[in-house]
């Protein structure tokens, strides 16, 4: 197979040339994968990513693929013993280490890792054709990182709800008291306030919204966010300050534009402070669904 369905002849030609050039570097021959099969692997990945890429896009995309790791996963999925030996040697520890670091509990981590390992191996539930989860690795980013992300997703799917419930119980056991819902004596809120807040949060720049949500809602540390975005903590701090100030200013402006007096708007704005936003337990609990968030909808 030397062409990728639906990607066009030009794309197929570029992929074929690229694969011919990189075949030896991919070490596909170690797993008895020939150049045509290798080309088909890459073409499938390209097709799944973008069915009609431009030439520069395609060149950049295939140039960034982790071919050796892609071949390894495909060979594992095909049941190649050499590939499995190599996978176990190189990545089994990664899997368990990631599970332990995420779960912070040995038994949970082992359960998580064992379960995932079975999925990676592709144990068929109904005795039908074996389907390894490794087939979902596309070579974008490292295999090690992909394994960590899969572990994290599985953890969120399985344990998030339990963990949060437990946390609440533990908090109660520790004597923490939660305030009862305050009885508001204020007059009913103006509908314009809702609209202003909703509109301005919706209009937030994605990065600003990500920062606000990560920091104020998720309670992430500046260092965590900075590491993810590959910038310095002080940069995140500055951006958060700027985003918060900008949000307040724009909400106030929208309130005034909607007919509210400046004084009224200022009084309201004094009471709005996104820095006081805490993780609302009730809301979070309500968002929990029985269905796992990932895999069933995100995987091809």
């Amino acid at each position, binding site marked *: 197979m030397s062409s990728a369905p639906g990607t066009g002849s030009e794309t197929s030609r570029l992929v074929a040339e690229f694969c011919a050039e990189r075949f030896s570097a991919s070490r596909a021959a170690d797993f008895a994968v020939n150049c045509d099969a290798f080309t088909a692997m890459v073409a499938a990945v390209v097709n799944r990513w973008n069915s009609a890429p431009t030439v520069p896009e395609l060149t950049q*995309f295939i140039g960034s693929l982790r071919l050796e790791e892609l071949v390894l996963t495909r060979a594992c999925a095909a049941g190649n013993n050499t590939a499995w030996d190599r996978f176990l040697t190189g990545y089994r520890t990664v899997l368990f280490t990631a599970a332990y670091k995420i779960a912070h509990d040995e038994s949970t981590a082992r359960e998580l890792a064992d379960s995932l390992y079975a999925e990676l191996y592709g144990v068929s539930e109904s005795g039908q054709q074996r389907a390894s989860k490794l087939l979902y690795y596309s070579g974008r980013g490292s295999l090690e990182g992909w394994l960590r992300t899969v572990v994290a997703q599985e953890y969120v799917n399985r344990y998030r709800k339990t963990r949060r419930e437990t946390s609440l119980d533990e908090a109660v056991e520790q004597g923490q008291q939660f305030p009862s819902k305050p009885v508001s004596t204020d007059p009913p*809120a103006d509908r314009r306030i809702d609209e202003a807040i909703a509109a301005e949060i919706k209009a937030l720049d994605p990065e600003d919204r990500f920062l606000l*949500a990560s920091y104020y*809602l998720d309670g992430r540390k500046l260092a965590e966010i900075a590491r993810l975005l590959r910038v310095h903590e002080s940069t995140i701090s500055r951006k958060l300050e700027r985003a918060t100030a900008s949000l307040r200013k724009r909400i106030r402006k929208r309130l005034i534009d909607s007919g509210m007096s400046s004084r009224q708007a200022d009084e309201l704005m004094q009471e709005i402070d996104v820095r006081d936003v805490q993780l*609302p337990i009730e809301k979070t609990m309500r968002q929990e669904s029985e269905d796992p968030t990932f895999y069933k909808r995100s995987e091809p």
Partner: protein
Amino acid sequence: MSNEFQNRLRKNLEQPAPAEHPAPDVLNAYIEKVLPQSEEQQVLAHLAVCTDCREVVFLSQSAAEEPTEVVPLQPRRIAWWAWALPVAAVLAVASTVFVMQPNHRAITTFAPQQLAEAKRDEAPQNEALKAPKPQNKTVAPAEPRRAAVPAAAPQLVSPREKDKQLRDQPVTGRNTIDLSAKELQREAKTAPAAAAPAPQMDRKTTVNGAPIAGKPSDSGAISADAISGASVSQQVTVQAETVQVTPATNERQQAARTNAPASSAPYGYSAGAMMAKKAAPLTPWRVLSDGTLQHYLLGRWENAAGISGAFLTVSAVGDDVWVAGKNLALYHSRDNGASWERETLPGLNSGDILHIEFTSALNGVLKTSSGAAFSTHDGGKSWVAVQTP
């Protein structure tokens, strides 16, 4: 009311999670910053509204065994200096303080000519000192001279008391030696010719290998008349660092430090100033062997934000930064890396840009793997192919 507002904010920030989520490989590629810029923005937009995916990326990141940041390796020589200079400076300061401590004297370092002027000013008060001075300066050892002073001038106050008087006197006082930075430099230049170094010293100390000798002046202050083996510029530095007479002269010291030639820095007391400086790279931009672009910020290397790719070369002039690499990737930032613009080369569809160099904000050249060379004279807005030999 406040709670009500906060609930509204939360409600809007916590929109229901989207039905579709990026696949794990895309999230991982986002964490590892290998996504194309457009796709990266899409993932970021999703993360902004999806609590679950945010949790996944942060969990995945926390599970990484080592930080993805590359710790910059400082050259060995710089690392040695970074430790040696502070240690040497601290030792020098500590030894100076230790030596000066018993007499509680201000360390006053003057060029010989200013010292002579000071002595002349004191002449009416202390006539007895005039006669033995020439001999003392060149021949007599310090201790005998010091012992002889009270005998020759019984009305003279002791050096320690005189020293105290000097410190207490205002800037414009008659006995205050008023030196501007320029005067300090001028006197330093004329110092070797104006007066020979006095051999008699009652205490010595060494800073960075340059022995500094001080002898008590007639007024009780200690002056460094000679710096053995030191050049003129070294003397300027020493004076600027050590003159501590009044607050007014402190300001002049600052000016003298500023005016002192850079070449004098490694000598004399200016080692303390060097200690405060952290070794910084020659250029705040670099490309790692894996193609990552890094920026030196706040004393550490950080991966450049808002740009990804396999880069091979980078050039920076002021706030203008150009980075280039594989697949003809060529980006220009006009704001020191805050934002990047993609630039293209005419007539080329494939290849790598191996080297880029800008000599000014407008003029630069680059070379590609195919051997082609391009130049620009408008800061990279347009590139013209140039003939290579």
